């Protein structure tokens, strides 16, 4: 997968986030503060601009610019978390012109660890980790399998009681709602198929 692939991926994510913006915000209204869609839309719009302003020449540069821009523009919990995810991916793939499926899968494993460390969340805490963690091993086999795993993981957050992020303040009242961050993570993974 070359630089163009990663640019297509990020473009697809940007498009999906824009399309699903209100849905993500609605999910966040139920158990958060009604801004998750707006946050990611603001962030990826800035990413789009950053990538257009100074087109990166390696896969690593695409991913690092994406991560840094998200950290600089999103704020909230998702800014540092998604920012760390993409920056870790960028560091892990290294300065190469092409990234193998295996190398990408390995980079995602490192990114998952970094995000879990930053947010100190575990699987089952009803966060983006619940979509990311099951997808990572599947990335070795196929994007389709990873996308399915992420989507299933996101859906599986519905009956969970949140233990991290704003939703945790709701205690048992967080049960019965799908986590917005897990939902957007499923979208990010799913967009790999379109790239």
């Amino acid at each position: 997968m070359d630089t163009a692939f990663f640019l297509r991926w990020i473009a697809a994510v940007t498009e999906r986030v824009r399309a699903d913006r209100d849905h993500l915000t609605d999910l966040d209204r139920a158990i958060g503060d009604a801004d998750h869609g707006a946050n990611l839309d603001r962030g990826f719009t800035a990413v789009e601009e950053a990538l257009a302003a100074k087109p990166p020449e390696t896969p690593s540069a695409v991913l690092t610019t994406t991560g840094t821009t998200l950290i600089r523009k999103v704020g909230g919990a998702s800014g540092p978390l998604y920012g760390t995810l993409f920056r870790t991916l960028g560091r892990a793939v290294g300065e190469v012109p092409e990234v193998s499926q295996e190398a990408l899968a390995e980079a995602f494993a490192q990114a998952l660890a970094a995000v879990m460390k930053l947010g100190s969340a575990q699987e089952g805490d009803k966060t983006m980790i619940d979509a990311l963690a099951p997808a990572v091993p599947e990335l070795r086999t196929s994007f389709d399998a990873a996308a399915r795993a992420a989507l299933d993981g996101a859906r599986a957050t519905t009956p969970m009681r949140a233990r991290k992020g704003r939703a945790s303040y709701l205690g048992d009242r967080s049960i019965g709602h799908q986590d917005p961050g897990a939902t957007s993570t499923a979208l990010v993974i799913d967009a790999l198929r379109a790239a």
Partner: protein
Amino acid sequence: MKKLINAVGDVVPDTLRGMAAAHPSLRVDVENRIVLRAAGPTPGKVGLVSGGGSGHEPLHAGFVGYGMLDAACPGEIFTSPVPDQMIEATKAVDGGAGVLHIVKNYTGDVLNFEMAAELCAEEGAHVVSVLVDDDVAVQDSTYTAGRRGTGATLFVEKMAGALAEQGAPLEAVAAMARTVDARSRSFGVAFSACTVPAAGKPTFDLGPDEIELGIGIHGEPGRSRERFREAREIVRVAMDAIDADLPFSGDVLVMVNGMGATPLMELYVAYGEVDAYLREKGATATRCLVGDYVTSLDMAGFSITTCLLDAELTSLWDHPVETPALRWGR
């Protein structure tokens, strides 16, 4: 959604422009979203930086000035600011004695301030962070992100700000901030949800006879939904929750805070009940604030924040302050 705004995307910069026009004592960088004292950093004084999502006005920008903050970093509505803002603010207020970051305990605020503090430290700045986590409605356990930071933020900013103004070193100012937080507790009640402009509809729906108990300051629903009751009983629920966590005694600083759409008249009615409750417990409200200080956009409701005072805290509270939203002694 009827809001006195120009466009959903312009609310934060338009608010900052209005603040800049209204308060010549502030230097407002609308582009980078940083609010500073116009006078610049005070050499030798510890700098105080806070920030968080917008929509809580006058928190934080309204508390920038002599005796309180040196800088505020307003994020998007209910969204914590980004590290760039905090880094710029930290640089701008460093008078050589280091900088205190006052961070409300939310994942977003914590993570972004952490990143900022790391980068500042890498560049050689002396930064200490303190977390504010005063909301008794949230169980503080390994199963939550910990207690939320709400009304006590004002108390921390005021008293740590006074100590910094008096020339105390960074460690002492940080210790004072932690002391104030440790002695402070809050509990919030919503009569209506608020509407985030970008979302366009209320964050939750409440029936005509329902209230939410134990809300935070971001339009989140609370811990439970209950039947509407008279002021005396609602105040009792809030005060009981605080008292169970940190029993009242001695001198107490009380803030009865409106969430944005509750008239002052009603806040005074509530304050009368708080005062009576404390007497019953053998404690005394020796200092108070009644009004809108830490709000949630257009939410109807109120919160009570208390702080157990001693002579030192009382004198720090009484120390002169000159900010847009809090002013006495000069």
